[in-house]
């Protein structure tokens, strides 16, 4: 009897442990499936026109998404201009100046903001930047993405500043530097690589955001000069093209998906390589 039990326990052991391995490799396989599908379908439909042409009117095949590519870049620039200063300065505050209670409150709020669904951020940006002027604009899209950049930047900046050894600060201060001088000339340069990494990851993350742009930046089938008009972006174009009933649009949606995914993955993998070489902190 006890022999049977032992066999049962041992086989259960083998089966369950194998299953955990299958689960882990299965999830990784999904990543490669996604990549494979996008490269296959997107690669077939990607051509030079995609990068240089405007979308063709409904019914005509061909055309590209040049305006959406430029639009995405413009939106990212706005997001960086609005979100990064707040994120970086707040990160410096938390790592270098913060007291106990107030820092805790700020950290908690930052996490809270990070967890707000992007569609809700969209509503907020709508009421800040669309309602007062009564029309969609690139600036409104930038506000939405900028808000999303803040919490990611704060946490990564704080983390990398804290990873700078205290002895560096003490050394600078022992030489007579004031605190802000120490931070500006010793601590920040030491953490530079990590902070830039964090910034890139934050931008990569918002580059793929669709939901908050739907009713802030809206979309545009033409060039959008200046900053005050509705503007196209890659993620929104993927969405509208994917749900439309035209085969040629589906083809272009795949191409756009491939370009977007390539951008996001290059940013993620690139920063990871830089980090592992420089040995920065752990990211959560």
């Amino acid at each position, binding site marked *: 009897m006890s022999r049977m039990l032992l066999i049962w326990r041992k086989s259960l052991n083998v089966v369950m442990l194998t299953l955990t391995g299958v689960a882990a490799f299965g999830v990784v396989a999904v990543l490669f499936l996604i990549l494979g599908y996008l490269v296959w379908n997107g690669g077939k439909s990607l051509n030079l026109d995609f990068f240089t042409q405007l979308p063709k009117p409904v019914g005509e095949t061909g055309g590209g998404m040049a305006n959406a590519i430029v639009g995405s870049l413009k939106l990212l620039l706005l997001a960086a201009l609005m979100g990064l200063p707040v994120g970086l300065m707040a990160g410096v505050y938390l790592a270098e100046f913060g007291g106990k209670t107030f820092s805790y409150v700020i950290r908690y709020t930052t996490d809270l903001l990070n967890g707000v669904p992007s569609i*809700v951020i969209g509503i907020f940006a709508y009421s800040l930047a669309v309602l007062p002027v009564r029309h969609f604009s690139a600036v409104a899209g930038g506000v939405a993405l900028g808000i999303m950049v803040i919490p990611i930047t704060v946490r990564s900046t704080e983390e990398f500043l804290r990873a700078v050894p205290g002895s560096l600060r003490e050394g600078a201060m022992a030489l007579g530097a004031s605190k802000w*001088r120490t931070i500006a000339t010793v601590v920040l340069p030491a953490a530079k690589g990590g902070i830039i990494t964090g910034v890139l990851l934050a931008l990569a993350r918002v580059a793929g955001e669709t939901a908050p742009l739907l009713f802030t930046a809206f979309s545009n089938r033409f060039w959008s000069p200046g900053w005050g008009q509705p503007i196209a972006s890659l993620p929104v174009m993927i969405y509208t093209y994917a749900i439309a009933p035209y085969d040629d649009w589906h083809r272009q949606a795949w191409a756009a998906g491939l370009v977007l995914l390539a951008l996001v993955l290059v940013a993620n993998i690139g920063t990871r390589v830089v980090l592992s070489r420089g040995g920065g902190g752990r990211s959560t």
Partner: protein
Amino acid sequence: MSTSATTMDRAAPRRFDGGGPRAFLHRLGHGDEVAHVLTLTFAAGILLLTSGLVYELWVNSHLSRAKFGWLFFWTRTWDPIFDNFGAAPFIYGTLVTSIVSLVIAVPLGLAAAIFLSELAPRRMSDTISFLIDLLAAVPSVIYGLLGIFIVVPLMRTTVGPILIGSLGHVPVLGKFFKGPNYGVGFLTAGVVLAIMVVPFIISVSREVLLTVPREQREAALALGATRWEATWKVVVPWARTGILGSVFLALARALGETMAVTMVIGNDPKIAASLFAPGYTIAAVIANEFTEATGDLYLSALIELGLVLFLMTFILNGLARLLIVATERGGGHPS
């Protein structure tokens, strides 16, 4: 790291502490106070921004809150033409899709996390974790794209008929697996969501499992437990609070996920028991109808839905954070 920073705070600039305006001016001359106040202002900006968000949601949903009150949550009609709005179908759809995604993602994610923390060699574990983190970085609209063109056809032609044929006849469970199968619907949305949230469960659970003291495993193995028994009966219970935290985190993501769900759920505000029926979620209806909302009350009702979504994720994220912090400090275990 944090210890060195705190020693610093205590040791550093206190030498000027004479008090009085002279000392303050002195410090101002060195720029320390300016830098302090400047960074503090930006940090406080985050507080202002977040409270602004809550305020705007509250104020802009005023019309709808005043007209429908608590009935908003129970009303099943969503009728923009007669200005009659109820959130019930959307809340139902949001909950059902999230639950389906958790039913799939929790066992899968926990198993993968166990493999990564208990079995895989460190290098392999790190590589796989990195790949899984990449999965979390894929934009949600791309999941939607794959959902429309791969998961939906697969559900319509293969998976759906198999499930209806097998589970459809089981007494209680059967009513979830009956009815016409269009390919789009709660189940499809749940499957896509599961793929999207599984990386969060894996990475957080793995971290938590790795904090379980080595002695716990060794003690169990020394008592004659198999590797699996040591893991399932000792390591996992030790880390259960943190694992629960990772589940809450995943749930919060699933509730708020917009694009991928919008593209595969069918967008029909109905409450149906069948998982194959098309439905609607809070995030999806906001995404679809916000730009078309013509009346003030219509817009206000959509913003109230946003407020509901915000509160749901707010509570879940708060709970998740508490649980994860509790385990990582080692306070999660009763003994």
